[in-house]
């Protein structure tokens, strides 16, 4: 089995997750907060994963929860990577004073503790998913800009960029048609690894209850199960499914990330399975 | 008696898409005091040859044949034995001086390292030894310079340091792989002069694509094409009366001879044509050249050539 096969397997797993999230209303037998049974029902045909302490269907919660978790992970990763890429390319391409100034600013911003800042900033909004993911994306891009800037800088000095410039291509065209495609491997790999990171982070934030606890997502499901007796009562069907769901997508993203990284970085290719 | 006797050395690399032959059935004998040059175009397998003798090829290389050094077959020696040979008996001057020196160690440390491994030289003696080496290679202010890091030196200086590293343990054989690549003409001439001085009484295997370097340093020359030796002989004689069409072409292609390049390109490893491998580029190829593969034949007293014309 090769890394390539791993990539396809992880893409397939991701596709399943996305399908579930998109078609949630058709897949879930009940609403996410609908009370459809008595509390703590063990799994049966009516409730695939049983019910929680209120009598809500855990399977339906799992299905609807995928939306929140996926939106959070991918939106913040997309935002963060877009900002990093745009800023990184512009800095790398123009260089000079602009680059110097922005890099100094980044140097200064770097030590600011992101995680607590994020937690505090969420209090400014009704801590909804979208707001938090935007915040997270913006704050996370501080570290990403440097990652993109370095290869952009060396690309901007290569002969073919000089060539493009000499035939009168506009800056915008050079950046979008010549530099960006060459950076795509780095950007893609960064996107995949960021999505995994943010997704797990989002579930974690929700687990420690730092945003809207009314939203049904995997983190709050785990938190709910963990604090309302799933362990002491041995209700595995309550605490395991959301955890396994997180592990599944995180694993798929991790595998995809490593496979991508290897296919773009031939040096790592010695690893064959 | 020969110092290093290579017989039937073949190297193949195992890649993702099967194995790729790089060297084919090389025979080469290096006697004590000989300075043998191995010349050929880039990619013909010269460097691989040097590395295969040192057993430094990556793990996916399959080496067959024999390389007898002082009666032992190096290809069969275990790793421990090889460590005794490397640096002490056979030393190497690698190409590309910018990257072969470890950037985080001082050059003093790096030169002293071989001495520490292979000799009992320690402390003040070691220090003195390194300074003597640096001085003998024309590096000024050795005390100060041995505390410096590779990136603080120019290309020519780094090349001198590499030579010092190779000479440190006074090895029986030195394999110099493109010692003058990437240097400008003036520095190159200096290094060549230096090499000529220090290699006067030593055994040298010089790997180069530059005929000038070869003729300046080597007593014997082997010409390599697409992984096999096509001609061998004393340098002076070989350059004056080249027998193989490829050697002739190489000489014609050198800038001093007016730069007439050989038409076509060398075959990629593993994609050699049937018959004589040089046949598609050969100006004097005949029909039988494209069918029968010639073997390396002795001609005259001390010449060898691989061409059907001399059969």
């Amino acid at each position, binding site marked *: 089995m090769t890394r390539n096969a791993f990539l396809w397997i992880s893409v397939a797993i991701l596709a399943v997750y996305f399908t579930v999230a998109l078609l949630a209303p058709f897949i879930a037998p009940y609403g996410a*907060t*609908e*009370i459809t049974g008595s*509390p*703590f029902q063990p799994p049966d045909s009516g409730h695939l994963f049983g019910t929680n*302490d*209120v*009598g*809500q269907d855990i399977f339906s919660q799992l299905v609807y929860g995928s939306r929140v978790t996926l939106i959070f992970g991918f939106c913040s990763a997309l935002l963060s990577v877009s900002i990093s890429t745009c800023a990184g390319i512009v800095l790398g391409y123009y260089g000079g004073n602009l680059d110097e100034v922005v890099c100094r600013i980044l140097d200064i911003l770097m030590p600011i503790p992101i995680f607590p800042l994020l937690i505090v900033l*969420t*209090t400014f909004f*009704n*801590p909804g998913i979208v707001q938090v993911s935007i915040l997270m994306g913006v704050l996370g891009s501080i570290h990403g800009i440097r990652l993109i800037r370095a290869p952009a800088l060396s690309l901007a000095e290569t002969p073919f960029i000089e060539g493009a410039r000499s035939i009168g291509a506009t800056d915008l065209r050079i950046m979008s048609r010549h530099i960006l495609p060459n950076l795509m491997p780095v950007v893609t790999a960064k996107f995949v690894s960021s999505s995994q990171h943010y997704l797990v982070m989002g579930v974690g934030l929700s687990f420690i209850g730092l945003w*809207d*606890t*009314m939203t049904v997502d995997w983190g709050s499901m785990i938190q709910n199960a*963990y*604090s*309302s*007796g*799933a*362990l*002491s*009562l041995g209700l595995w069907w309550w605490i395991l499914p959301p955890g396994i769901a997180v592990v599944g997508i995180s694993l798929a993203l991790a595998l995809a990330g490593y496979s991508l990284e290897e296919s773009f970085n031939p040096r790592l290719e010695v690893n064959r399975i | 008696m020969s110092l290093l006797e290579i017989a039937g050395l073949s190297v193949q690399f195992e890649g993702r898409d099967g194995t790729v032959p790089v060297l084919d059935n090389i025979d080469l004998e290096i006697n004590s005091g000989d300075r043998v040059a191995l010349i050929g175009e880039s990619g013909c397998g010269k460097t691989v040859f040097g590395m295969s003798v040192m057993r430094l090829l990556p793990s996916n290389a399959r080496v067959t044949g024999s390389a007898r050094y002082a009666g032992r077959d190096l290809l069969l020696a275990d790793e421990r034995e090889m460590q005794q040979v490397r640096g002490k008996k056979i030393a190497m001057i690698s190409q590309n001086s910018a990257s072969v020196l470890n950037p985080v160690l001082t050059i*003093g*440390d790096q030169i*002293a*390292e071989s001495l*520490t491994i292979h000799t009992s030289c320690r*402390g003040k003696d*070691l*220090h003195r030894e*390194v300074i003597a080496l640096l001085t003998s290679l024309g590096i000024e202010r050795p005390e100060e310079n041995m*505390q410096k890091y590779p990136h603080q030196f120019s290309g020519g200086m780094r090349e001198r340091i590499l030579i010092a590293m190779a000479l440190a343990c006074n090895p029986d054989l030195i394999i110099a792989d493109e010692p003058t690549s990437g240097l400008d003409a003036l520095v190159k001439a200096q290094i060549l002069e230096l090499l000529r001085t220090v290699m006067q009484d030593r055994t040298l295997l010089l790997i180069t694509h530059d005929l000038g370097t070869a003729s300046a340093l080597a007593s014997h020359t082997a010409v390599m094409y697409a992984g096999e030796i096509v001609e061998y002989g004393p340098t002076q004689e070989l350059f004056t009366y080249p027998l193989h069409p490829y050697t002739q072409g190489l000489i014609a292609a050198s800038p001093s001879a007016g730069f007439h390049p050989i038409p076509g390109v060398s075959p990629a490893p593993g994609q050699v044509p049937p018959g004589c491998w040089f046949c598609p580029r050969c100006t004097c190829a005949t029909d039988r050249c494209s069918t029968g593969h010639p073997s390396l034949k002795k001609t005259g007293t001390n010449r060898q050539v691989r061409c059907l014309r001399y059969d």
Partner: protein
Amino acid sequence: MEESSGQKRKRIIVYGGLCLIVIIALCIAAWGSGIGNAAEGDSKNKEISADEVIIPASSSSSITYTSNMQKGGVPPGIYQGLVIKDLNGTFDPALAESWDVSADAKTWTFHLAKDALWSDGVPFTCADVKFTNDYLKSNNLTLAFVLNDVQSIECPDDSTAVITLKTSYSGFLDQISRQPGITISPQHIWQNITDPQHYEDEKFIGTGPFVFDQNTAGYARLLKNDAYYGKKAQISGVVLKVITNPDSQVLALKNGEVDVVSDISPAVAKSLDGEKNIAVYTVKDTGAYEVAFNLAQYPANITAFRRAISHAVDRDTISSLFGTGRPTETTFLIPSLAGKYVNPEDVGMYTYNLTEAREILKNSGFTWDGKGLLLGPDGNVVTLTIPLGTKGQASGGNQKIVSVLKNDWEKLGITLSTVSYDDQKQYKKAINANAVFLDSFPVTLHDDADALTNFAVTPLQDTNYYNYNNPEYNALVAGIRNTADQTKIMSMAYQMQDILAKDIPTVPVCTSDTIVAYRSDRFTGWDLGQGYYSVTDPRVLTNLIPVK
């Protein structure tokens, strides 16, 4: 390897520096955690005896004690107020053995316990009572607001305190004993303290049945006060242990690491039922929920709408979700707890009947559009948003209520959504901007006739959360304040409940219980009966008897 002396020095500096950093870090660690002075062998450290009760605390901040003049919290069972509130609507004696009140509810005379001693041996006198009031006020301490009504405190003798209020206030006892209440502080300790804001008490000299021992590494320990003047504890001490996760508390109970766990869910209680050596008891009606209206906002400003909604709250289903809850039966006060103050005529006012709700809406100008959505008298679709305080108490309960309301109100054509707020201030703002909100509270806040002031507008309180302002009602509230006559108070409370039943500023939904599980092989006496719902209540702790 050859090294010059310069290189050697460099290396020594770097590695030495790294080692130094590690050592410093370890030293800080040792200093902060008190590892360094652990060996001192403090003589007051008594061996843990078998008859010390171990109670889990849900956060380390709940056992971070500062002083009883401050907000940070004090160990339970050490400080006492004049009276202690009994959840049956009466008051038990504490430092005051008995009390009289003047007819206008303005002058309160407390007869203090004569044998009461501070735990350092100094006798407790009326001077301490007077000092507490004066000190709180002269130092502008936050808790002083509890005593805002107090004009002065006189001490005719050591064991009598006469408190004169600024205005008549029949609910004064409730005021000083309900959370946060006021406990009496020792004058001989506090008179020397000039910076009470930042004073950290380490001894906690009090008069209660327990004395403070220590507070270390996630534990707090109280010992029995042998010199206590009242009913002495029969256990030798109390240990509070931090276990943050409620589920871990249950696990700890099963393992025998703690002796009691309170506030467990009905399902957990059920699973503990068969366990050996574990007993479960339920304290009824400790919490309550209401669906409240903001009368300043459309459509809650329409009385008919509120009336209709009062029939669209399925109190039976909701209380069934709480596992142990019961639907409330009256307009406001909870019958079993408020006892005699409940007007029996109003019991059972808000029956669940969607048809009737629909009828009321139809008769008062509401219509429905083609999709079945409810249109208000102004012709617009009625949509409601319920603000929720996520970090507020019992928000889980509110979630359950919302899910049931949503189900029913959608049948009436009302679209219901929720918004969560992380902060009380924002939440209160949101309550003021929306028509409907939910409230949940421990019943201690609502079980007294005085608590009906919640709905009033008075000189002290120019508005209320309901934005309810009925002059007739306000007059009754003033009336209740101004008298100490229990019969008068009762009849006025009845009238007020009638008014509330008519105006419906709120729909009481249900009450819920607190379930407590304890190790029956260790202590008995946890189940003190109705009204004592906190396991750290000194009355519960003094009632405990070790099994062996």
